[in-house]
């Protein structure tokens, strides 16, 4: 019983520098890192010290909350550095990679003939478990729970997002193996949501054991939170798990080959990239190895992820655990003379206060300027235009600011994640940093209500 969902509220931000549909390979990065900061709610406890030898799949650290959830090395080599920040918070565990990757051995086998417990154990041990996230709270799923359903969004609608139909082409068998494993984790359905516009890859269309739903509309139609809300909304006390197609591939390879193969295909895109295309690389690849020779580094913002939700990285840093996109856009920083009255042909706005609305379909080369200063909320109705939930976004954000947990609960805090508010943050006239407010709000509710 597949569903057709039409999203009407939202917007596609058209940026320059979309990745061309060409595969390329990056040389093995000399350093690879896992960043505990990618996992909200996880307090990392190190298992190994600097200089220790690791293989791909060797546990590096575990979550203080649940020591079964381990984070493993994506590559074999030696732990080169444990980079720390303020209050000795662990920022990155950096591994100096071998030329040839050696793998830890995990159980291989057909997931259909394995029990739920065996599958969970294999996922936990190999370090694949953190791929599975849960709502409420947008954190790593708890292996002791049973979710009411599992969601996989087969397409990403964010600006410059990688095209999963292209990436997964020809990987049908591995994807199905991954799905078979995922399927066992829930008593409910596994929802695979494809883009109704254009033809989805056969990898998705021919998937077995899942419910395929068609979603149409502008961004955020591809965000899993929106899809959950429209298809199987979360009530208080319920859990829904979700992951991305490439995560399923990694899990598929675990069950096929018995190893933690952290290679992935990443879209290297953005207007500062000379030849934007798809590169095969490792999880946690070093930024230096990606930008070398292909990215204009002068006044450039490097983003691990997409421009709306990604995190800022620098040349010494590494890509994030969940990121399948590397974006390089111009760094702002220069004031604009009488910018509040200038015609602004190069500015993209959801309002029509800039004359850029004269040119529909134009692709923009946006920089990282805030284009204004933070103010109290004045305008209304802006968030609602890009927030396709039956939730009042501004009121929920205000409840988070005043830390009123009961109000947040009433207004639907269990269904949202920071990424759902990314477009609100983009559109905000008052330049309020909504995503970080939502993250703090979710952390607070999680700490108080579990």
């Amino acid at each position, binding site marked *: 019983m597949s569903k057709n969902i039409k999203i009407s509220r939202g917007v596609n*931000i058209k940026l320059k520098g979309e990745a061309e549909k060409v595969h390329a390979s990056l040389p093995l990065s000399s350093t690879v890192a896992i960043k505990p900061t990618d996992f909200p709610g996880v307090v990392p406890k190190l298992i190994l010290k600097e200089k220790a030898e690791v293989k791909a799949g060797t546990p590096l650290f575990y979550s203080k909350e649940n020591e079964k959830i381990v984070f493993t090395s994506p590559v074999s080599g030696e732990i080169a550095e444990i980079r720390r920040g303020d209050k000795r918070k662990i920022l990155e565990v950096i591994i100096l990679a071998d030329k040839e990757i050696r793998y830890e051995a995990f159980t291989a086998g057909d997931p259909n003939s394995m029990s739920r417990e065996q599958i969970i154990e294999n996922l936990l041990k190999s370090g694949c478990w953190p791929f599975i996230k849960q709502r409420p709270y947008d954190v790593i799923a708890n292996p002791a729970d049973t979710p009411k359903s599992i969601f996989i969004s087969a397409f990403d609608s964010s*600006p410059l997002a990688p095209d999963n139909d292209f990436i997964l082409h020809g990987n049908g068998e591995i994807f199905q193996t991954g799905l078979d494993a995922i399927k066992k984790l829930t008593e409910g359905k596994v929802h695979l949501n494809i883009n109704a516009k254009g033809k989805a890859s056969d990898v998705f269309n021919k998937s077995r054991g899942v419910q395929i739903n068609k979603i149409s509309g502008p961004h955020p139609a591809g965000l899993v939170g929106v899809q959950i809300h429209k298809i199987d*909304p979360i*009530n208080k006390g*319920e859990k829904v798990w979700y992951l991305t197609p490439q995560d399923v591939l990694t899990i598929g390879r675990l069950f096929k080959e018995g190893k933690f193969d952290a290679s992935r295909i990443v879209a290297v895109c953005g207007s500062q990239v000379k030849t934007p295309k798809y590169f095969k690389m490792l999880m946690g690849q070093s930024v230096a190895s990606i930008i070398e020779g292909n990215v204009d580094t002068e006044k450039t*913002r490097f*983003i691990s992820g997409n*421009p709306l*939700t*990604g995190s*800022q990285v620098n040349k010494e840093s590494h890509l994030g655990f969940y990121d399948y996109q590397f974006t390089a*856009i111009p760094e*702002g*920083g*220069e*004031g*604009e*003379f*009488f*910018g*509040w*009255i200038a015609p*602004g042909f190069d*500015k*993209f*706005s*959801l*309002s029509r*206060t800039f004359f*850029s609305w004269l040119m529909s379909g134009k692709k923009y080369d*946006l920089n*990282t*300027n*805030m284009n*204004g*200063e933070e*103010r*109290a*909320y*004045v*305008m*209304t*109705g802006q968030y*609602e235009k890009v927030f396709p939930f*039956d939730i*009042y976004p501004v*009121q929920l954000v205000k409840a988070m600011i005043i830390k009123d947990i009961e109000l947040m609960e*009433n*207004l*639907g805090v269990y269904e949202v994640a920071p990424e759902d508010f*990314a477009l609100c*943050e*983009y559109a*905000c*006239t*008052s*330049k309020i*940093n909504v*995503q*970080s407010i939502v993250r703090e709000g979710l952390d607070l509710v999680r700490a108080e209500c579990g």
Partner: protein
Amino acid sequence: MRFLEKFLHEKIKPHFEKGGKFEKLYPVYDGMETFLFVPGHTAHKGAHIRDGIDLKRTMITVVLALIPCLLFGIWNTGHQHYLFNGEISPEDAWNVMLWDKILYGAMKVLPIVIVSYAVGLGVEFAFCIVKKHSIQEGFLVSGMLIPLILPVDIPLWMVAVATVFAVIFGKEVFGGTGMNILNVALTARAFLFFAYPTKMSGDQVWVSELPDATAGETQLGMWAQTIGVKDNPDAVQGIMDKTYSTMEMFIGNMPGSIGETSAVACLIGALILIYTGIGSFRIMASVLVGGLTMSYIFNLVGINPFMEVSPIDQILAGGFLFGLVFMATDPVTASQTPTGKIIYGFFIGFFAIMIRVFNPAYPEGMMLAILFMNVMAPLIDHYVLQANVKKRISRLKQVKVAA
């Protein structure tokens, strides 16, 4: 322009920063700098790209939308002056003595605008310096709205007093831009209306330098008079003969507050606000529907001549359209939820017509209706939110029943 930016940062800014000579005036410097340059702050948290719009641009767009009303108000001030003083006759074309009218109007109107901005921004700056906040843009619009809703012969000191009152008690005590409950410009007008009624109502204040012993009535004033003589058909007819035609009301060449008379100018403003997405179409449409509904109901009842005025004439008269386009849509004081906006707007239109017909002592029902609904807006939003909350709770209950 890099040169100017550099000059500001290197030569001027140090005086205003901590330890500088004018340290306390930093908000003023900051206000001036951000007026010249949209600052080059970059996003470090959350989304790396941001919409081009900010509050300054939003406010300037509203001010632009007000310009047609201001220009028409200037022309009309001169026009009414010369008309009532007998220097032109009603049959003359609009451009007879055009430059005299504009010059006369400008001399009357611009001082009010200047006083309103100077006093309002002065109070705003003072508060920012005391509270060490950066200067916010809210008054850019209020400063233009206040002159446009006043009679042209208002003494300038009254404009100043009203502006001070409105900015302090209408806005700053609640926390500044974005925090106020009542529309700032209407607070100024309501203050004058109740404190100095002789300068704000009657038949003597709407035309500049009205000759002695003549009456410069507004349309609403004349309609209101008919109620007193409703049993005398001749008297009613006598008054109705003097009232302005639908076309005159649409164009706006009649006495009234400076910026409110012309429906055309208001509609141009409405188009700008709706097209740019700054003003809420929902609110505007529902105010209109509310006004039409109430007038139609009065038409059906029809116990006095004012009630029998056609709905279209009711909408065009007085400040209804000006309030609809520029006051009711103020996002801070209006309802904030989409459903709430419809309810809020409908009742503004509904009450505005009701007040002006039921209580002829307050012909400007629009002002009172909007202020009243400003106070009610949070309540409307509360019930809209509760409906959403209940929906979520009932969804949870269904799941529990099923389980």
